């Protein structure tokens, strides 16, 4: 087997077109990986500067009423993962900035795609783009006539006479081409390791290993499928046409069609419906600014009872702050309900999309690639969750200061000190550990594995039938 693989490589390296294309892909990969890393570093720096800029304004805040400070609010700027340099995923369409303020859970704004004319429908030239769109085609062209050429030239008979089984010959050919893609994959990983060595931790290394395995699986699928078509159809042109049609279907057509179908099966609410239902539920709580109704009465009674006083003015605390926090607590329930439903719908759509990997392994690869790079929807929702959790703690500390920081009910002009505002910690995004997310990608991984096993079996079977 090793001899056949070496012989295949010898043949390929004698081919000038192969050398030219391989060099081209190699250079493209090196450049795209390096540019990806540079762009990542610049974007992270810009994100850090923006976060520091906003924080410095907070730190310099004059003594202010804590609730005014809650309206003044803060911002969370979405950081990007190290592996964003390999696969950008949804990052360019999600927006970069999230306002964190009292009384509302905001949406992210200022997506990169909304800041310019359209450039590329398939995204930036990152390694993922090359691995998903270009390398598979390269592999198809290396594979589609590898068997038929041997057959028409009569060389295959020579190999069979020398004692090699047909199955071994075919599998050796498959491996010889597959290993070329593995070499290209390895180079990308090595460049990442070299240029990002100070930023890597165990989690990133684990993610990179999975990235390598996922793409290796997919490349095997592409090469072996092309061989199967070539062996079964016994005609170069037919084999090539069918493989390219399959590639077009998998890569260009099906992802969009299946995503649209998922959207139709599990329709998302419109922004108007979402905002309206949220406003209706929200109006049933206490309006911190214009409190009325039974809820306000109940809270007032409970507070008076707790402090054992008759009137709000006699409270040792500021009832306005308590009201504001009660308003927030109710709002949190409403947001949990509505945003929770929305996220569940998005996750259900994603589940459906993932299952379609059974007919299109490209979808599984795409999901894994984005997930492993920390740039998919799950990671985005995790960022939103963390930012929202921070917002709640942030607003609560401001409302608590208003209520219990030394002011009394009716003291609207009371101001908290600058030291207090500086004591509130800034938002720190904790990049999730892949192991805490692995269940979300298990289906994709298993589907790719299923495809690999299926094609190994089919290739074995077809070589037996020749």
């Amino acid at each position: 087997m090793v001899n056949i693989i070496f012989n295949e490589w010898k043949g390929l390296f004698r081919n000038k077109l192969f050398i030219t294309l391989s060099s081209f892909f190699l250079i493209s990969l090196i450049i795209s990986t390096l540019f990806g890393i540079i762009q990542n570093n610049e974007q992270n720096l810009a994100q850090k500067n923006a976060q520091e800029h906003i924080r410095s304004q907070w730190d310099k805040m004059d003594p202010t009423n804590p609730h005014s400070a809650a309206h003044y609010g803060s911002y969370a700027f979405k950081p990007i993962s190290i592996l964003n340099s390999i696969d950008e995923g949804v990052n360019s369409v999600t927006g970069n900035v999230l306002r964190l303020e009292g009384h509302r859970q905001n949406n992210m704004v200022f997506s990169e795609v909304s800041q310019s004319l359209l450039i590329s429908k398939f995204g930036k030239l990152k390694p993922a783009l090359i691995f998903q769109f270009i390398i598979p085609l390269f592999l198809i062209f290396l594979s589609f006539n590898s068997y038929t050429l041997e057959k028409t030239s009569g060389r295959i008979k020579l190999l069979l006479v020398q004692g090699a089984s047909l199955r071994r010959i075919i599998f050796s050919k498959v491996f010889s081409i597959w290993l070329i893609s593995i070499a290209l994959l390895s180079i990308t990983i090595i460049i990442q390791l070299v240029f990002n060595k100070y930023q890597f931790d165990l989690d990133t290394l684990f993610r990179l290993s999975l990235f390598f395995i996922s793409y290796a699986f997919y490349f095997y699928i592409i090469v072996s499928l092309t061989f199967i078509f070539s062996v079964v159809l016994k005609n170069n042109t037919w084999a090539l046409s069918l493989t390219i049609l399959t590639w077009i279907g998998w890569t260009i057509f099906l992802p969009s069609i299946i995503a649209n179908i998922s959207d139709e099966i599990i329709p998302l609410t419109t922004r108007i419906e979402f905002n309206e239902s949220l406003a209706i539920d929200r109006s049933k709580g206490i309006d911190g600014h214009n409190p009325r109704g039974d809820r306000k009465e109940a809270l007032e009674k409970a507070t008076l009872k707790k402090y054992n006083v008759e009137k709000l003015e006699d409270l040792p605390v500021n009832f306005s702050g308590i009201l504001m926090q009660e308003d927030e607590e109710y709002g949190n329930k409403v947001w949990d309900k509505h945003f929770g439903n929305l996220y569940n719908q998005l996750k259900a759509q994603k589940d459906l999309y993932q299952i379609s990997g059974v007919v299109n392994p490209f979808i599984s690869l795409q999901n894994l690639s984005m997930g492993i790079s920390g740039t998919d929807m799950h990671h985005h929702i995790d960022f939103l969750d963390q930012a929202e959790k921070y917002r709640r703690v942030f607003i609560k500390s401001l409302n608590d200061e208003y209520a219990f920081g030394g002011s009394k009910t009716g003291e609207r002009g009371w101001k908290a000190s600058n030291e207090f505002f500086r004591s509130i910690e800034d938002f720190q995004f904790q990049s999730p550990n892949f192991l805490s997310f692995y269940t979300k990608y298990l289906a994709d991984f298993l589907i790719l594995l299923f495809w690999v096993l299926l094609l190994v079996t089919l290739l074995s079977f077809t070589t037996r039938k020749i």
Partner: protein
Amino acid sequence: MELLNIFKYEIKHFVRSKSKLFAYLFFVIACFYSISNGFSLYNKHHSTINSLQQQEDEKISQVIKWFNNGEKGPEDKDWVDITDPYWSLRYTPKHVFKNPSPLLPLGIGQSEQYGYYKKTTIWSSPYDSDIIEEISNYERFVNGNIDFSFLIIFLLPLLIIILTYNINGLEKDLNFDKLISIQTRSFNYWVLFRLIFYGVLLVSTINIFILSVLYINNVNIIDGLDLIKLSNLYVAVFIIPFYFVILSSKSSTSIAFKMISIWLFLCVLVPGSVHQYVSLKYPPNFMTDFLDANRKETYAIFKLPKEELHRQMLSIYDDLDTTKQGQDSLVNIKTTRNTMSCIVNQINIHAINIIEEQNNFKNNLIRSTYWFNPISYFQNEWNSLTSTDYYAYKDFRDNIQFVINNKLKLLAFECWNERTVNVNLYDEYLKKLNVTKNQQFNP
């Protein structure tokens, strides 16, 4: 005659070639599907706009009802007094819409990345968070929607490859290309005419789809002509290099390989590289200028003394000194505070201009690459014709800003003139607020 013969034989070949026929029919079905997607988005935009318009009308009717009943405002908000211009204008909702172009079914472009309606208040700006795109699955965005422009720009070249890669290639594979050379007047013409057949077939198919949408949406054919010209030019952009590929290659495999390489190079590699370069040169903007204007500088305005607010208001609107408040030696704190959103608006405008300028630099860089990045040119040109490109939405933002400016100017002059609003004056307000961009407005 020879041309007709070649066409006749090519039709036979096309009809008998199952893979080609299947690919073509698949493309036609995909076109139907994409246009139906486009229509559903077009209808969705229309129905949303209609429903918002209806809500707006209901709210206006409510205010008129308060006037007619002698009420000051909602029962549970006793501080509201709609006879005060400040409150009557605050209670007058004004939505700005970006109406979908009737050509939207032919290309949704960047429309899913932007909002298409905006409720304007006296504190609004075109970059508010309520103007973001419709709720959508971000991963669907990444894959892109199958719209008609996507089919033309990305899939049509692939269809051309499937239909033409074995022209001459098959003959060379089977070694009877010499026979063709003998039988035809010119081998190159023979290849060219066969290619023209597919060119004509595809151009006719595309034009039929475009014309159908024009007909359904009642669009003048002249308005759709640019789209027809653009799509036909696009077919030529691929057919011409493919002709030379066919002539210079030795087998159908080689032709297919070269054609696919051209497609990959033009549709994926070049735009991807430009995208990466542009992103390096102009990294995503975190809009800190706008955030500062919206927060730090706005809060600084809130803290200004009334005299300073008064002075700043006069510097924005020169004619304010002719109003009652402008001529009064004593500054009215309530009026000044009620109209300070005009000052905040000026700060927002300044910050937005910086953002738009940065975006414009980015767009200029993108446009400067068109000579080697034709796909981006065709995409943006197509989007521009269907009013779904960046500039269509910039116009929408400009329109929002115009409406805000309009509303704030009215607020400033009415408040400073200490007007008392009645139903007639309110009706005048509504007329003035409905002035669209490019129309002069005089308070």
